[in-house]
């Protein structure tokens, strides 16, 4: 963990000694990690290792689970996100999230993308809103496919399109960080390839953290990889190092398919 050449020069988010509990059960044990500003960071690990739990504590989505409790310190641009002065609504506008299963609202495509902007009052008028929606859909690579049917229901799109719509919806509020919780696990290979391509294009505009089961995907899309096992962070480093030259025995066993 003390690998000198992996220190992230300009961390967007920092976690220090984070523990997450569900009731009496500890799901995350003493995790410290930095998330780079212009990088894609992948969290990998076997099922139940706590990577999704940790991801959800980065924008306080664990607050919606009554029994969840987070200790330790998580910072966004040096600011403690669990501090009483932190407004969770503002936090989530800055740290967006894309979920495992596409979850468009049962509204039109336009309204899905405009939802966040309307809530946060980002657009002064209809023309501004149109610009925001078009830009978000374009960035999400969906504009050409849906520009003629913005009034149709978001739930009528295909699974892959729905997921890109959800990414567009997250982009539309202009976040600084986008958290993706296994965004391709419900998609077919072609839709998955499109999402991966999209992640490439979004890199540099947002700090992206992606949880994935698929090690090839982590290798393809990320620059940094963190390996979680049984609630602990086993190893964190450059993606190329993790996959070609892991320092820890457990990491090696996992990426060579010994377990997981």
């Amino acid at each position: 963990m003390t690998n000198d050449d992996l220190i992230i020069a300009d961390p967007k988010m920092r976690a220090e000694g984070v523990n997450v509990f569900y009731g009496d059960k500890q799901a995350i044990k003493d995790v410290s990690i930095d998330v780079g500003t212009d990088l894609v960071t992948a969290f990998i690990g076997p099922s139940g290792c706590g990577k999704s739990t940790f991801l959800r504590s980065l924008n306080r989505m664990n607050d919606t689970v009554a029994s969840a409790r987070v200790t330790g310190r998580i910072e966004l641009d040096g600011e403690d996100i669990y501090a009483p002065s932190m407004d969770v609504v503002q936090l989530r506008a800055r740290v967006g999230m894309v979920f495992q299963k596409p979850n468009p609202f049962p509204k039109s495509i336009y309204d899905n993308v405009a939802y966040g902007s309307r809530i946060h009052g980002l657009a002064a008028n209809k023309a501004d809103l149109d610009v925001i929606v078009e830009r978000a859909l374009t960035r999400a690579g969906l504009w050409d496919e849906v520009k003629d049917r913005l009034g149709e229901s978001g739930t009528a799109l295909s699974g892959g399109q729905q997921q890109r719509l959800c990414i567009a919806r997250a982009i539309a509020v202009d976040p600084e960080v986008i958290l993706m919780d296994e965004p391709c696990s419900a998609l077919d290979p072609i839709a998955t390839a499109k999402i991966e391509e999209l992640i490439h294009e979004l890199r540099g505009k947002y700090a992206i953290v992606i949880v994935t089961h698929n090690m090839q995907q982590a290798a393809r899309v990320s620059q940094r990889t963190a390996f979680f096992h049984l609630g602990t962070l086993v190893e964190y480093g450059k993606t190329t190092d993790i996959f070609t030259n892991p320092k820890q025995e457990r990491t090696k066993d996992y990426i060579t398919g010994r377990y997981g």
Partner: protein
Amino acid sequence: MTFNAAALLLLIGGLALIGWLAGRARSALLAGRAGTRLHSRPQYHGWYVALWLFAPAAIFLAVWSSMSPALITNAVLASPEAQSLPAFGFERGAMLSDARAVAQGKQAAVRIAEAAPLVKPYADATHRYAWIGIAAMLALALAGGLYAFTRIKPDFRARTRVERIVMALLLIASLVAILTTFGIVLSLLFESIRFFRLVPATELLFGTYWNPQSGAPQPGTFGGIPLFWGTVLIGAIIAMIVAIPIGMMTAVYLTQYAAPTVRKWVKPCLEILAGVPTVVYGYFAALTVAPALRNFAVMLGVPNASTESALAAGIVMGVMIIPFVSSMADDSINAVPQAMRDGSLALGATPNETIRQVLIPAALPGVMGGILLAVSRAIGETMIVVMAAGLSANLTANPFASVTTVTAQIVKLLTGDQEFDSAKTLAAFALGLVLFIVTLMLNIVALRIVKKYREAYE
């Protein structure tokens, strides 16, 4: 010796138990022999014998109990003693039932002297038919039991057969409700047709004056519009203005904000509210709400404020419907996937914005279905309106005035001494038919909406 159906049912029940034991013992015996393997386990053979023993005999018992009184009466009428009876009418019936009561030991002596000679033929016939019935029933039971018993072999598929019989029983049970509905519809329909022969349907549906009188139908007094309007005013407008917002807010609070402990207490309380008999709501409306509203109306200077008012009945009915609306809305909101809620919260929406902009719109079709079901319940509700809304058929939009509803008028038309073939009485059936058709359509539409909506998230 009379024909006591309950005792006989017990008797064949006992025989069936013996059949069960015998069937099971025989198959177990067969299984005990070397080299044989039963297709079905012994108790299925037992059930097979028991069912064959019980079912035909029980069906015969049911048929015979309904037939034998007529057979006995016919036998009596054929006897020479019955020739002196009056040919038709009330006296004849009275004498026959007098003689029957004595013959069956329900009364010590005849009250009508002319009935006395009939007692003996009655007793004889009763005795004879009882023996015939019992003998036939026992013969059937034994024949069925023996038939089943002889079929027991190691490879006999008793289990499949028993299961098929059980399935048939379940089917019959489910048909009872459906057939009853058909029976209700038919009886409503026939009486309504009789009414529509006397009064044209257009008058009932579109007439605006309601004042049915006994005797020959007078044209222009069977206008149903004031009743339909009263029903809509109370059940669909006032009650819903009370029930929809309160029910929805209750559901939102219970699903989104309430701590588990609060939910644990509030939900059962709502269910208790749903279980209060409507007559209790009725006197609450009539004795507490209506006078208070009247005083309020007088204070406002409303003309012709009455102690019986649409508002009192509607408000109390709305309160009665609250648990119904809130539980339907509760289900619908809970059926909206958690992912939808998370998606909204993750975009930085507050819980309140999430509820208003995502959860309620997503739950709306289900809620609408629930509301339609609630309306159909409200317009069929009777006790509250009878007690609190009054019986005068006014066509008015003033909620403080007394109005009447379809159900209240049905009660009014059918209670008290009425001749059952006057247009006035028959009008109750026609009103019932209209009410039935309207609520049926509401229910069909509501259930379709709810079903379609459920599919959307599965």
